[in-house]
C-alpha cells in the first residue's frame, strides 16, 4: 500500500469531520432562531429589519426602539450566554469523563457546582442579588475544586480515585452549607432568590454577564481543546499514560484547571444547571465516537445548541419562565434513555 493510501485509511474519517462541521453550525443556527422566540409579539419581518439596521447603521430605522431592545439587548445576549454556558458545561463533562475514565462523571464532579451554589447563596444573604453573586459563585467554585484537588493528594498511590472521592466529600460539605444558608436566609426575599439561583436560569441575561464569564470560559474551553488528544492518553490510566511519555500530573492538572474554569464561569452566571455536563458528552459519543480530538469540540457545540433549545422552551412553554435545571433534567433524562435504547449503548 502506498503512503498516501495508508494515511487516508487511518486519519479521522471524512464522515466525522463533516459531522463536526455540521455540529459547529448548530449553535449559530440556534442563536439566530432564538431571536424569533419570546413573549413580546414581534413579526418575522420586524426582526429582520432590526437585524438589517444592526448590521448597517445607515438604514433609517422605521420601527419603535423597543424592538431593538427586545432583539438585541434581551434575546441576543441571552442566546449567546446560553451557548457559552451549555458548551462549557458539556465540554468540561466530556473532559472529566475521559480523565476519570468514568462515564457517570459530570462537570460538577469536583465540587464546582456545589461550591458555586454556596458562594451564590452566601452572596445573596450578605449583599442581596447584585454583581457580588458572580464573584462569590466563581470564587467558591474554584475553592471547591482546589480543596478536592488537595484531598486527592492525601493518599498518593491512587490519585484518580482519591480526586473523585475528594470531589464527593467537598460537594457534600458545600451542599450542607447551602442548606444551612437557606435555613438562615430571610424567607421573604432572600430564600426565594437562593432557590431560584439553585434551579438555574438565564433570565435577566445581559451583555455584562457575557463579559463577566467570557474570560474563564475562553481560557477553559481553549485549554481543553488544546489538550484534547492527551485526554485520550490519560484515559488509559496513569501508569500507561506515563509509559507513553505523558507527564500525567501536569496534563491532569491542566485538564482539571481548564474544566473547572469553564464550569465555574458558566455556573456563576447561570446558576445550577445539571445534566448537560453528563448527557451531552454521551450524545456526542454516539454521534462521533470516543476520540477526544473530535468529542471535545463536538460536546461544546452540542451543549451550546442544547442549552439554547432548552432556554427557548423555558421561556415559551408557559407564562412564567421555567427554571433551566428543571427542564434539562426533564428533557435530558428521558432523551438519554431513548438514545441508549436506540443505539443499544453503542459507544459504550
Amino acid at each position, binding site marked *: 500500500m502506498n503512503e498516501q493510501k495508508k494515511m487516508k485509511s487511518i486519519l479521522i474519517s471524512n464522515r466525522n469531520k463533516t459531522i463536526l462541521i455540521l455540529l459547529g453550525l448548530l449553535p449559530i443556527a440556534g442563536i439566530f432562531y432564538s431571536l424569533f422566540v419570546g413573549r413580546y409579539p414581534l413579526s418575522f419581518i420586524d426582526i429582520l429589519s432590526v437585524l438589517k439596521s444592526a448590521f448597517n447603521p445607515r438604514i433609517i430605522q422605521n420601527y419603535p426602539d423597543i424592538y431593538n431592545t427586545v432583539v438585541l439587548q434581551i434575546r441576543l445576549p441571552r442566546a449567546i450566554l446560553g451557548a457559552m454556558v451549555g458548551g462549557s458545561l458539556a465540554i468540561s463533562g466530556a473532559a472529566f469523563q475521559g480523565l476519570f475514565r468514568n462515564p457517570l462523571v459530570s462537570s460538577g464532579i469536583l465540587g464546582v457546582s456545589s461550591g458555586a451554589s454556596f458562594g451564590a447563596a452566601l452572596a445573596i444573604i450578605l449583599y442581596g442579588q447584585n454583581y457580588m453573586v458572580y464573584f462569590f459563585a466563581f470564587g467558591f467554585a474554584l475553592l471547591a475544586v482546589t480543596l478536592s484537588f488537595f484531598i486527592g493528594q492525601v493518599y498518593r498511590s491512587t490519585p484518580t480515585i482519591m480526586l473523585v472521592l475528594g470531589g464527593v466529600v467537598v460537594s457534600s460539605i458545600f451542599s450542607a452549607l447551602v442548606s444551612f444558608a437557606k435555613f438562615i436566609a430571610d424567607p421573604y426575599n432572600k430564600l426565594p432568590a437562593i432557590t431560584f439561583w439553585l434551579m438555574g436560569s438565564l433570565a435577566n441575561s445581559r451583555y455584562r454577564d457575557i463579559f463577566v464569564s467570557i474570560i474563564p470560559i475562553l481560557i477553559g474551553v481553549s485549554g481543553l481543546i488544546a489538550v484534547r488528544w492527551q485526554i485520550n492518553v490519560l484515559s488509559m490510566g496513569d501508569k500507561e499514560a506515563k509509559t*507513553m511519555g505523558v507527564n500525567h500530573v501536569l496534563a491532569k492538572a491542566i485538564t482539571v484547571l481548564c474544566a473547572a474554569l469553564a464550569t465555574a464561569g458558566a455556573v456563576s452566571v447561570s446558576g445550577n444547571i445539571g445534566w448537560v455536563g453528563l448527557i451531552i458528552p454521551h450524545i456526542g459519543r454516539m454521534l462521533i465516537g470516543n476520540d477526544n480530538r473530535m468529542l471535545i469540540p463536538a460536546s461544546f457545540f452540542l451543549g451550546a445548541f442544547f442549552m439554547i433549545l432548552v432556554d427557548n422552551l423555558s421561556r415559551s412553554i408557559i407564562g412564567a419562565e421555567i427554571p433551566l435545571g428543571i427542564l434539562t433534567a426533564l428533557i435530558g433524562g428521558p432523551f438519554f434513555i431513548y438514545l441508549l435504547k436506540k443505539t443499544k449503548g453503542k459507544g459504550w
Partner: protein
Amino acid sequence: MAFLEVKQISFEYDNQKILDDISFKMEKSQIFCLIGPNGSGKTTMLDCIMGLLSLKSGKIFLQGQDISQLNPKQIAQNIAYVPQNHKKTFPYTVKEIVLMGRAAHNGLFNSPNQHDHLIAHNAIETAGIEHLKERPYTELSGGEGQLVMIARALAQEPTLLIMDEPTTHLDFQNSLVVLESIKYLVRKKQISVLLATHHLNHAFYFENNGLDTIAAMLNQKNFAVIGRPNKILSKDNIEKVFNINCQIIDYHSGRFQNQKYIIPLETIN
C-alpha cells in the same frame, strides 16, 4: 556498552524490601525472560526499569544513559510497555488506540500529525491487525487486544519492549500468535524484548526458535539463577524456585533439534 544495564538495584515499599541488589545486562535484539512465581517482584522490577518507581539504590542505564536522569518522554521514546491488565474504558477504535503511542513524540498541546498517523499505520501492519483497524477495541478477543497493545507500543518506535505476562488469559492459539509476533519483532525489527512471565516454557520457546534468549529466575528479592534457558531451567532450579517436581523433555520438531519443554508434575510439600 550493554544495551541495558541494571546495576545493583534495590527497591523498597513501605520499608519492605522487594528487590535486593539485582544486577544484569541485556544486549540488543535479545529476549530477556524474567521468570518467577506470582508475587516475586517481576512487575516491580519492570516498573523500576521504566522509571515508574524510584530505586532505593543502584542505577539503570539504557544505552549508557542513566534512566533516572531522563524524563518520561525521553524514556517513552526508547522503552515501550505492553501492560498485563489493560483496563478498557471507552470503546476507542483500534487505530485511535495505536495512535496514542505517538504521545511519546508529541508535546502536551499537540495532536498527532500526518507523520504520526503513518507510523501508527505501520505499527498496525507490523502487528498484523489491519483488518481490526476500525473496530472498537473493547469488542476484540483477548489475543487481538494484546496485539493492539503491542501495536500501540510499536507506534512509540521503541528500542526496548517491556511486556508483563503477555499471554495471561490467552488460549493456546492466541498465546502462540503473541509469541510469534514477539519473535518477528526481535528478528525482523531488531527490537529487544524484556518480558515477565510465569510460563517457564516461554523461555524455551524463544530459545528453541533460535533467538538470543536469556532467562532469569527471580526468587526472594534476587535472581536465583540467570543465563541461557537450557542451562538454568533445570529440574533442580525449578524445584527450588517454584516448589514443584517437573520433568524436562527433549524433542525434535522440523529442522530444530533438541527442543525443550517443561512438564510440571506435582507440588512439593
